[in-house]
Each structure stands twice: as structure tokens, then as C-alpha cells.
């Protein structure tokens, strides 16, 4: 970056973008902490608030786990095998990123309601409407592409010859997967799970359609905002953002340190 004629305008534009993300976050902390600290304390001790945050974190973790469980084999197949319709499968998995989430909620509600294709089948022992499973299903739907794409990239980054060598050394395909492919892709898998978990926590529209109750944090925040306005919704928002930031930082640094000893 020697030529200032290019560098200067690029840096300027970059600064604007970073401020665009940073300023609202800085602002909410500044306003809440300096002008309404008691409101924050009140929200932090309000069971409705902390229960909704916990529900968001917990349900989204379940969704991320489901994405990991079902998405890992799919990602591996997409990374390693060639078959007719492979691109179609990959694009189907991407669909949740382009479908409006309110529409996703409606479509999911269509098959997971009490008499829907899936909901009707299991309604004797599993309820999706206004229940935790419904929240998890909505979160999984919108976050799945983040996991699958990241995991696929991870498996693609593993040299297939390492798997070949493992086989010649005497390992079965299963043990090769768990001893070579999986550990070498693990940082991508973890990154994918974190992204998908974060995406799940933030989901409002799809969740609100299938399960308005019990209220997740975004539903509760939206509820308070429409009923009472900015001042009432801000403390819960701040708490949710704080918990997300802390958790992300911890997980990211864990993902980094996980592989730094050999990479």
C-alpha cells in the first residue's frame, strides 16, 4: 500500500463501515450505562428477561448441535464425493439464506403444527407449536447453511491423500474419518457451529411464527419495543448483546487455540 492515492479513499471508506457497525453498539452501552443504569439492573433481575435470554442461548445451542449432527455427514459428502445432482443439493441447503425468514416460519408452521405432516405424526409425544422443539426447528432451518458451508470448506481443506495414507496404514474408513478428516476439519466445524448458533440466537421472524411462547429474547425485546418503546426494550437488548459478545469471544479464542499447536 504505497500509493496514497488509492490507499486514502479506501481507508476512509473502511473507517465509515467499521463505525457503522461499531457506533450503534458503543451508543447503546453509553446511553444505558450513563443515563439509565438502574433500568439495566432492573432488567437483569427480571426473571422474564433472563429466562428469555437463557432460552435463546439454550435453544440455539440445541439447533447448532442438530446442525452439527446432521450437517457434518452432508458436508463431508459434498466435499469428497461427486454425484449427479450434487450442485442441486448444495443449492437446496443454501435456500434458507435467500428465503425471507417470515416465509420460512410460515412454511415450517405448515408442516410442524399439530396437524401438519410432521407435527401431526408425533403430536402424541412431541409438540412444536409454542414449545421449545418449535423454536429449535425454526433456528435450525435458518442457521443450517452456515454450518454446512463452513464444514464443507473444512473437509475440502483436508488433503484426500491423508485419508488414503490412513487407509494404507490400516485404519478403516470410519476410523480414518474420526482420526484424520474430523480433527483436521475441526476448527472449521467449530466455526460453523458458532456461526450457526449465533444465527439461531438472533432469529426473530421464523421463531415468532411457530412459537411465540415461550418467549425467546428477540421475541421479548420486540414485544417490549412495540408495547413500551425504546427505553423499555434497551436494557434487555444490551444484556443479550453482552452475553453474545462474551460467548463469541470465548468460543473464537478456543477455536483458534485448538489448532495453533500444530498449524
Amino acid at each position: 500500500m504505497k500509493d496514497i492515492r488509492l490507499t486514502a479513499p479506501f481507508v476512509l471508506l473502511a473507517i465509515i463501515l467499521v463505525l457503522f457497525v461499531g457506533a450503534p453498539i458503543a451508543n447503546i452501552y453509553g446511553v444505558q450505562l450513563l443515563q439509565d443504569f438502574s433500568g439495566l439492573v432492573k432488567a437483569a433481575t427480571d426473571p422474564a428477561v433472563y429466562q428469555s435470554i437463557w432460552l435463546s442461548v439454550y435453544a440455539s445451542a440445541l439447533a447448532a448441535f442438530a446442525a452439527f449432527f446432521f450437517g457434518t455427514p452432508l458436508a463431508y459428502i459434498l466435499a469428497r464425493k461427486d454425484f449427479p445432482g450434487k450442485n442441486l443439493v448444495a443449492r437446496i441447503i443454501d435456500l434458507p439464506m435467500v428465503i425471507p425468514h417470515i416465509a420460512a416460519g410460515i412454511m415450517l408452521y405448515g408442516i410442524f403444527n399439530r396437524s401438519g405432516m410432521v407435527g401431526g405424526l408425533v403430536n402424541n409425544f412431541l409438540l412444536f407449536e409454542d414449545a421449545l422443539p418449535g423454536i429449535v426447528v425454526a433456528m435450525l432451518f435458518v442457521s443450517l447453511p452456515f454450518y454446512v458451508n463452513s464444514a464443507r470448506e473444512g473437509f475440502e481443506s483436508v488433503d484426500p491423500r491423508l485419508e488414503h495414507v490412513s487407509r494404507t496404514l490400516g485404519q478403516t474408513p470410519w476410523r480414518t474419518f474420526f482420526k484424520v478428516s474430523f480433527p483436521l476439519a475441526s476448527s472449521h466445524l467449530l466455526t460453523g457451529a458458532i456461526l450457526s448458533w449465533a444465527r439461531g440466537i438472533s432469529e426473530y421472524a421464523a421463531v415468532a411464527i411457530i412459537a411465540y411462547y415461550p418467549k425467546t429474547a428477540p421475541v421479548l425485546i420486540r414485544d417490549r419495543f412495540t408495547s413500551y418503546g425504546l427505553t423499555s426494550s434497551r436494557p434487555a437488548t444490551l444484556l443479550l448483546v453482552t452475553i453474545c459478545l462474551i460467548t463469541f469471544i470465548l468460543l473464537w479464542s478456543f477455536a483458534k487455540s485448538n489448532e495453533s499447536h500444530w498449524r
Partner: protein
Amino acid sequence: MNPTGVKLEDLTKDLGEFRIENASLEAYKGDYFMILGPTGAGKTILLETIAGIRTPDDGRIIIGDRDVRNVPPEDRNIGFVYQDYALFPHLTTVENVLFGLEARNVPNPRAKAEEVIDLLNLPHLTDRYPRTLSGGESQKVAVARAIAYRPGVLLLDEPTAALDPQTKESVRAELGKLHEELEVTTLHVTHDQAEAKILGERIAIIMAGKLKQIGTVDDIFNKPIDRKVASFVGVENVLEGKVVKFANQVATIDVGNFQLKAITDVEQGPVYVYLRPEDIFISDQRQSTSARNTIPGTILSVSHLGQVYRVRVDNGLNCFVTKQSVDEFDLQQGKKIFAAFKATAVQVRLSHT
């Protein structure tokens, strides 16, 4: 250690744009067998097919006395070393070596791993990760990993191709020593003729997916089966001719531009005549020497090839000479010279139909 032979019978593998065709060869128990061929000849694919990483379309692969066509790689009792080593980056040296021992439930894996690490002089690298190793060190770890559990067959894919010249030498010496010590049947793929000569007991030449010739080092380098093999193994003079006279093991062969004498068993018929360029002497006048052949000619060109100069002569011969000779005889284009070579330096092979 229980070395086993390897036999391929009409092995065929079609990869669309590339095809291994009817490859048949046999590496005997304890052999050091070289597969020599130019880049892109299908050497790695052949090796991967023997290892079971690829499934052949046709033909048989016999390891020991088993047809392993439907046997997965983990049950073929082989060791495999890739050109760029393919060490597991998340495992240390000793963990890499332990990998195969543990997979095969070898008793006392740790002791066995340490034994082979000692054998290859790697104890100082035991706990290092692959990214911290040099090329030569990585190569030795990859070999250690492949022989730790004493496979019946060791498959080496261009094991020295990525190394600098000095390291190459030492790795070759190490491979020769190991083979002597372990007597493991070794199939070693290379594009390097020098390597094939140094290490190979027998050599197969592979070109464009076909095994062209299988033989001893002497066979391959002195009696290549056709022009393509000849030019690949560095026999610059391939002449077509006909035996016109034969007496007392000496054949007189007419190659068009001139006649030459050769010591051979070939008594008649159309033949290929091979003459290595370094076996031809050049002088500026006819001399009486022990060489039975002295052929006059005019120099077409003199070109510098590093250590030697190549002299092309209008009688069809290519010769290698030193700088000293170039200066001494003032070799240059248009000069009339005599090219002399012994009758024993000429290799004769019946031209096959």
C-alpha cells in the same frame, strides 16, 4: 517381517482423459523394483491402484498369494509413501509412526515406534509436529511410518522428487540401506534415471499409461526396446539397420550412412542399433585404436550441456565430449572429424514387428 511378492496381470484403469492399459509386472519377494517413467506417465495412479486407493477396471493384483482386487487398502499389508510425504499435520513424529501400529493392534506399539525412529536416526524429532520438519526429515518420518508395522510391500511414490540434491543422495542411501536390512519388497516410482540405476534391481519403464519394458538395469539402459524408451533413458543414438555379415560373434550392420561392427548374438535381420553418446570418441584424423569402428563425418553443431558438449555429426551420430576435447580438436560446425567406438559399445536388438 514377511515380505511378499507383487504381481499385476493386465491391469487396466480408465480415468477418461488418461488410461493405464494392460499393465503386467511381477516384483519378486524382497525385490527392489523401480517403475521409471516421465511425468504424467501414470506412475502414481498405478501405485495407488496397487495400494487399493483406486479400483482397477480390469485385471488382477496379487500381493503374496492373494488376489487383492476386492480387498480394501487397510487389509493389503502395504506401506505407502507419497511424494510430498502426507504426514498427519495434527500429530507429532512419534504419533504419526504410532498411527499404523495402533491401527493394526501391534503389541507394544510405543516400543516398536521408538525402534523404527531409532533405525532412521530421528530420535531428536520424536515430539515435533510436521510443519517444523525439513523436507528430508519429513521424508524419513513418512518412511518410518510406512515400515513401522513391517508391511509385506513398500510402495514409494517419487520419494526424493521434492528434495534438494544433497538430501536426495542421503535419502537414496538410506532407502538402499533400509531395503538391505528389512528385505521388504519395494516398488519405487520415479522419473529420475540416476535413481533407478542406483537403487533398482529390476526396472519397469512406463510411458503414457503403458508398461513398455521390464528388465535389469543393464537391459533398460543399454537395450531399450524402442526409440521412445531409448531417448527417455538417454541413449541418443538409435539407428535402424540390417545385419549384412556375421562371423565369430561380430556382426557387420549396414545403417544406411555407413557400416559398423558390433559384438552381438543377433546373426541376421533388421535391427535397432543403440550407441550411448558418451561411448563415442572424436578425433581430427583417423587413428589406429582398439576401437573397431571409425566413421568419418562433418560436424553439424556443437552445443553446451553443462558438464559436456554434444556434437552432432552428419553421419547421424550424436557424441558427448568434454570441453578439453572441444578446445584441443577445435571442434566446430563444418569441421571434418572421425567418430570412433568399440564394437562392444554397440547394442543390437532385433527390431520387433
